[in-house]
């Protein structure tokens, strides 16, 4: 038999949330810097920006937007599902979210493919012959949308990972032997179930009890994410919403200004 | 070099010395105080430490006094800055073109030079353009500099109040020969300036003109050779024509006359005969870069430089 001291599992929800919010704030600044660049250049070359944006297809842009908005919705639904303890539903919505993210990327791919095919890409002969503002417009367009796309990809990877985590089932195979060597006069041992209801209750200890030997075999829950602890899922969700939100800003700036 | 050769230079120095003196007093005070404490409040002399740990009065004092001091500093700098930036309306306008790694100047009447000559006590406004990367036009004796940024017109103005020749340096890092990107400002009395103005307006035409273009353009010879007698990286080409120079060929010194053949060789194949004193600075070979016609034009230009001393 091996002696264990119960190692406290450190769980700080507020801390974990806070860390993520600070991170998201940083992300906002990252895009913020680019939005500033955008506004400076747009201020310098209003006409060129206007002209250049006409070559972007508004319908494609709208589809992008709708896809991402829907994915935000499914993300929220998946978190609600886990809160209710419905893992299956949670997984379904998560899967839908990932699918929509992929759809966005595919859509993006065809949009860019089309542009590049038509010779509109940074450094292309066609662009070099255009007005300066047009060149800058497309430089910014490709950088900002590209970096946003990168975030979508990172988001998809994160969601896939969390999908895998949610999928994990409780583990039934390990055993735990405990050896306690303390006195707890006035307490009693109890086993409670997941809802906090007492399943079994021992007798009250009195002063005469000096040692407790306890041997329990149990099924520790290996699943990281369940209706009680879904902070990782929630954080992934927050990240996903941020990515969506940034698109909501990108969309009018590039597709709707003309 | 320590001269205050521009009208506003003394203002800059006043701001400097004010800050310098305030800083020296503060630094000395701080240092002496530390030494004093080490001595007076050492464990030996003061075994029981005092217990005070704050004072609103002192905090206020050392917030307010530095605030006043720095505001004076700011004001001095601000005042000097205004003089440095407000060019009088009657300034003479000279255009400055910077590129890796030389300066060129264009006067109102279209003259082009590679060093700046200005009249004494007359305001001059430089409009500055860069053809490649950022450079910075710096005249230490005038205490002023301004970057030359591609895609932008920056200006710098000055009124030179001292005769003489002053260094102009490039103060913004611009590549390999950044530290060689220098020229001079010559400040001349009004009469001398007018004489210079007449003297340099030389007729240059035909092949020699083409040579000059190559010299400043395709060949970029001006990066290393001056045409006014000053030494940049390589020897000056002014007065080179038909003069005698000492070269090192196959490890031996030899005197040659700078005739057409020699100059052609020097351009196409410079490492063959290296001018004495320049053994460590290689000139790039122009074989394959310039063709026969270009070389011919360059020779004409060098000939022209020789025939027409200042």
């Amino acid at each position: 038999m091996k002696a264990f001291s119960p190692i406290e599992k450190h769980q700080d929800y507020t801390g974990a949330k806070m860390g993520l919010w600070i991170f998201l704030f940083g992300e906002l600044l990252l895009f913020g810097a680019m939005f500033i660049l955008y506004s400076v250049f747009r201020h310098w070359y209003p006409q060129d920006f206007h002209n250049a944006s006409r070559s972007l297809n508004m319908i494609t842009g709208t589809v992008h937007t709708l896809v991402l908005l829907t994915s935000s919705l499914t993300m929220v639904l998946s978190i609600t599902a886990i809160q209710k303890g419905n893992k299956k539903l949670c997984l379904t919505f998560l899967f839908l979210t990932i699918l929509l993210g992929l759809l966005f990327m595919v859509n993006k791919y065809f949009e860019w493919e089309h542009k590049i095919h038509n010779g509109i890409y940074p450094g292309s002969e066609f662009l070099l012959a255009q007005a300066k503002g047009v060149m800058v417009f497309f430089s910014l367009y490709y950088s900002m949308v590209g970096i946003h796309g990168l975030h979508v990809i990172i988001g998809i990877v994160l969601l896939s990972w969390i999908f895998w985590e949610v999928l994990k089932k409780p583990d039934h195979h390990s055993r735990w032997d405990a050896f306690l060597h303390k006195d707890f006069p006035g307490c009693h041992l109890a086993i409670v179930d997941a809802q906090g209801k007492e399943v079994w209750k021992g007798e009250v200890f009195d002063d005469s009890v000096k040692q407790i030997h306890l041997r329990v075999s149990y099924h520790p829950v290996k699943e990281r994410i369940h209706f009680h602890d879904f902070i990782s899922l929630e954080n992934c969700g927050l990240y996903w919403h941020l990515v969506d939100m940034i698109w909501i800003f990108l969309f009018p700036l590039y597709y709707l200004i003309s | 070099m320590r001269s205050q050769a521009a009208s506003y230079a003394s203002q800059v120095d006043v701001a400097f010395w004010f800050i310098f003196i305030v800083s020296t007093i503060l630094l000395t005070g701080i240092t002496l105080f530390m030494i004093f404490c080490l001595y007076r409040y050492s464990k030996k002399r003061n075994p029981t430490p005092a217990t005070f740990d704050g004072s609103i009065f002192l905090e206020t004092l050392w917030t307010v006094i530095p605030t006043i001091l720095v505001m004076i500093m700011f004001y001095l700098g601000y005042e000097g800055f205004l003089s440095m930036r407000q060019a009088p309306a009657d300034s003479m306008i000279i255009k400055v073109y910077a590129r890796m790694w030389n300066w060129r100047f264009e006067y109102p009447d279209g003259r082009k030079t590679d060093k700046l000559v200005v009249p004494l006590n007359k305001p001059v406004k430089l409009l500055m353009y860069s053809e490649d990367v950022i450079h910075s036009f710096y005249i230490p004796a005038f205490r002023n500099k301004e970057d030359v940024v591609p895609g932008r017109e920056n200006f710098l103005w000055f009124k030179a109040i001292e005769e003489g020749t002053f260094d102009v340096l490039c103060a913004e890092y611009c590549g390999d020969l950044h530290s060689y990107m220098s020229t001079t400002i010559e400040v001349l009395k009004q009469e001398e300036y007018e004489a210079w103005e007449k003297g340099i307006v030389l007729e240059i035409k035909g092949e020699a003109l083409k040579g000059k273009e190559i010299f400043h353009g395709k060949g970029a010879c001006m990066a290393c050779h001056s045409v006014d007698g000053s030494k940049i990286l390589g020897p000056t080409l002014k007065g080179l024509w038909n003069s005698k120079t000492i070269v090192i060929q196959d490890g031996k010194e030899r005197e040659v006359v700078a005739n057409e053949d020699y100059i052609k060789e020097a351009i196409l194949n410079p490492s063959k005969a290296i001018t004495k004193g320049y053994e460590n600075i290689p000139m790039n070979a122009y074989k394959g870069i310039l063709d026969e016609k270009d070389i011919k034009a360059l020779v004409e230009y060098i000939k022209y430089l020789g025939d027409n001393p200042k």
Partner: protein
Amino acid sequence: MDVSVSYNQEKTAYPGIFGWIFSTDHKRIGVLYLLSIATFFIVGASIGVVMRLEMLTPGQTIVQPRTYNALFTVHGVIMIFLIVLPGVPSIFGNFFLPIQLGAKDVAFPKLNILSWWLYMTGALIAVAGLFVGGGAPDTGWTFYAPYTLKSATNIVMPLFGAFILGISSIITGLNFITTIHRMRCPGMTWNKMPLFAWGLYATAWIQVLANPIVGITLLLVIFEKVFDIGVFDPSKGGDPLLYQHLFWIYSHPAVYIMILPGMGIISEILPTFSKKNIFGYKAIAYSSMLIAIIGSFVWAHHMFTTGMSDIARIVFSFLTFLVAIPTGVKIFNWLATLYGGSIEVKTPLLYALVFIFQFCIGGFTGMILGTLSTDLHVHDTYYVVGHFHYTMFGGLGFALLGGLYYWFPKMFGKMYSEKHSRIALGTLFVGFNTLYFHMLIMGWLGMPRRYYDYLGYFQTLHVTSTIGSWILFVGIFYMMGNLIHAGLKGEKAQANPWGGTTLEWKISSPPPTENFEEIPEVVYGPYERKGGQE
């Protein structure tokens, strides 16, 4: 489990070195950072010495212009991105922040080791960039467009390395903010938090807020070089000044990322050796935040000569001066802490005093740079080079060394020789001031920086300065030898050799893995010496 086993002896899940590089223990991570940073410092500093040799004579002394340009770039990049930026937070912040707060670890231990991995990855990418592609970059550590866009050297890799280092820095920052908010032990209110933690807190915010901006800027430069976009290149409609703005919006606050934790160390050392409570605790704590805030709005003082509008220059100059005030408040409170104390003169204290002296020179020269008229003269001359070596090396560098001497017994459980460390400090002091004070003089006389060659009349000053670098070299060697010897053969250190009052002195040296058997409770201010806190 035996709680008294020290962190560096503990049996870990992985054998040998893997027990360190996969450890999530904040103390081991701190030591990892210490060793990596020291290694890079030796490289960067050696390059500095080579540069001084080249400057011994005008014209060529030992290297070609192209090589010299690469040398100062690599020197600057290593020093800034690999050493002084991560420096104090990563080494001492990791090691001591949780202990000073009475916590067992930082908020996100796994992210913490991830940040070291990112640091090493970024550093190695940057260093590898020197040997592949077009060779070492020759742009200066500021990577100004459009020169950077034109240079044929390998710039993409160092930039990408710096980008990754930025991510590492953001992670450290958010980890510290969360730790400070969530993991202070019972009783430790904000106003009972040690000043070192305050310095780290201010710094952590700048790290989180400013890093993304430089991150995106560097990324855009990479895009310009690789994908031909044109945001900063004027020939494509871009604007080089926007690059400078974005660069300095980060890199000016970055200098406070460097100095604030350093000042935190000074605020720890002085009360300990004066045997007296710190003077003006709140003033020192809040001035850190003030410096961080004001410091975020002065970036364009690096651009006074770029052709920015005159109004902008005036405003930025004005704001620049405001930073001096909270900095001065710190200095004067430190002096008042010494006053009336019962001072025990030990090496860490001497470092702190040398810090105050040298940092003041750095700060005062900063005033000349912030003044509009004088900056037009000294911008991009050796005056600036002198200024930033005084602040970064004379200030932050000496604070870091002071911290090392202060906490060395705690970190490694060994004492060093007091005599030898004083001799080393004396040598460093003489060498440092000989080396850099002459740079200030040269700068005022008009010697531009990043110059391979120079006019003959500067030679005497350059030679003196170079001699200073040799003295400094000897000093650093001596110092390192002294510490290495102490680490191997030193006497065993007590738990509290200096009579410090903060929590790290309440546990054994070196600290046990879990720091505290029981989370402590705090009643008094961190430097108060009543209620049996002696």
